[in-house]
């Protein structure tokens, strides 16, 4: 068997094992055997009389949806990172660093205030709108001629992040009664997971990942520059639009259910690139599985280290992500200095 196939299989096994761990650990102690039995009941197994009703409830209605949401959103965010890095031709760009995730959270906050949260996908729709506006703004600020410059791109991202957190603070103060709800989107959490949110995000992530996979070869070629890619038969402008819109849609839907969780789109693709190189066709499956595993592990850590309370998941991902970002920044500096 090829080395790559083995790694993929190992990742899938690790992911399944981690999902099982996610169902077992937590404030209430549940044994492995009980957990397996409860999980088997989903696939038509008999309910066992020895296991209390509450165990069923905890696993099937609290832990399993949360585990699934972590898997879906982690994979989605990681693939978004791959897409952004290819489109911006910059290993430092991800939706969080560029302020697109914050842009989506601003939309969510506005949706809460104008009471759109009752409507189906109301929050997601507004998140998508503000996230897309943020992307357009970023490109507008940082493109000089046909090129996007690393420094201006990062500066644009940072300033937009500042601007949006200021706007959200103002919104919270003006709408004190909704403060608790809005704060959820700025912190990021998987605690509100249910099967509905899992199903909706899974749909959007599936479509988004498929689109990125369809264009993976074009994204490779585009890393050599727009006009080079064009001479090799890639419709660069169309590809850029399709990828940016579909990956931004993924981010917006994810943020509208989990809030802003940073750095996954930066850390996972970076580690994957170290192992498999820059070919986006190869990166994609690893980034997807890696993102799932990373987010799931981070969530398990954040809800088990200080029971019964939880750490915000963003603090775990940033704890790992920020150093990787700084390391990449150092590398970029070295390259500029020759």
């Amino acid at each position: 068997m090829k080395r790559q196939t083995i790694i993929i299989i190992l990742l899938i096994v690790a992911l399944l094992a981690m999902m099982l761990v996610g169902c077992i650990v937590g404030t209430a102690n549940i044994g492995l055997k009980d957990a397996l039995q409860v999980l088997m009941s989903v696939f038509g197994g008999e309910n066992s009389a020895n296991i209390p009703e509450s165990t069923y409830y905890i696993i099937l209605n609290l832990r399993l949806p949360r585990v699934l949401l972590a898997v879906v959103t982690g994979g989605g965010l990681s693939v978004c990172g791959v897409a952004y890095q290819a489109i911006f031709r910059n290993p430092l760009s991800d939706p969080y660093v560029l302020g697109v995730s914050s842009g989506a959270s601003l939309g969510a906050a506005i949706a809460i205030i104008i009471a759109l949260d009752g409507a189906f996908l109301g929050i997601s729709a507004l998140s998508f709108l503000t996230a897309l506006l943020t992307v357009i703004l970023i490109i507008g600020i940082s493109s000089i001629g046909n090129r996007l410059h690393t420094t201006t791109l990062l500066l644009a991202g940072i300033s937009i992040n500042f601007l949006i957190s200021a706007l959200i603070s103002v919104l919270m103060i003006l709408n004190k009664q909704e403060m608790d709800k809005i704060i959820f989107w700025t912190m990021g959490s998987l605690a509100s997971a249910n099967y509905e949110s899992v199903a909706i995000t899974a749909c959007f992530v599936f479509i988004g990942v498929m689109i990125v996979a369809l264009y993976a070869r074009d994204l490779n070629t585009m890393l050599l520059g727009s006009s080079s890619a064009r001479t090799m038969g890639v419709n660069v402008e169309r590809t850029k639009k399709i990828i940016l819109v579909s990956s931004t849609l993924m981010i917006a839907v994810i943020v509208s259910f989990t809030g802003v969780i940073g750095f996954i789109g930066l850390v996972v693709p970076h580690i994957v690139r170290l192992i498999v190189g820059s070919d986006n066709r190869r990166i994609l499956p690893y980034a997807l599985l890696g993102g799932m595993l990373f987010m799931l592990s981070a969530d398990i850590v954040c809800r088990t280290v200080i029971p019964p309370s939880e750490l915000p998941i963003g603090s775990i991902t940033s704890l790992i992500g920020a150093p990787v970002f700084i390391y990449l920044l150092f590398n970029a500096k070295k390259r500029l200095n020759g």
Partner: protein
Amino acid sequence: MIEVKHLTYKTRNKKILLSDLNFEIKDGGFYGIIGNNGSGKTTLLRCLSNTLNIDGGSVFLNHKDITSYSIRQVAKQIAVVPQHTDFLFDFSAHQIVMMGRSPYQKRLCADSEQDLQIVEQSMRQTSTWHLRNTSVKVLSGGELQRVIIARALSQNTPLILLDEPVSNLDIKHQFEVMNLLSDINKEHKKTIIIVIHDLNLALKYTNHLLVIRDGCLIADKPTKEFLTSDNIKKVFNVNSSIIDNNQSQPYIIFQ
């Protein structure tokens, strides 16, 4: 192959970079584009490959307006070796050359047996096969240029455009690359258009020159006919004499 009629190109602030160019590129020729820095050579090359949208006139590729082709169709006719290629991401030489196959590949399909064969052939032809697993980030200038030319070859086009492919190379690699292009031109019957500064290389390798000054085409002549001391003085404002003893290659000496 290519026919250019009244080609005009302006920048966004209406500065005219190319004005009313008319010429024809014939099958199998080895064309050189020469002219001072900033005269519009690179712009012309980009107009010919349809990577810039022209403001007036038309470029005809095989008797059809180039804008009526899809981007993919143009990529099957014209390959381009740009002046610079940025490698911000780590690709192996083989992966770069394989990118030349993209106009022929379908989405989600792996590289076909034929793609692999053509890539190997192009890499062997440019003596880069031994570098196939090397990262392009660590290649030398000459090696990199040959890899990019291999990529253009794997695109399997009747026409190859090159923008100053030898300007950054040492003398040995200059000849290596030019000999390679000459082979491609003669043996594979590919038409070559090259932007070049070195008039002696132009004299040795090209058979036709397009001379650009301030965005205008001031000469469209066979190389040997054009390169005289008078013309060099007129275009470049440099005194020179041409040594031609009928035994070896004629040579231009600048004074």
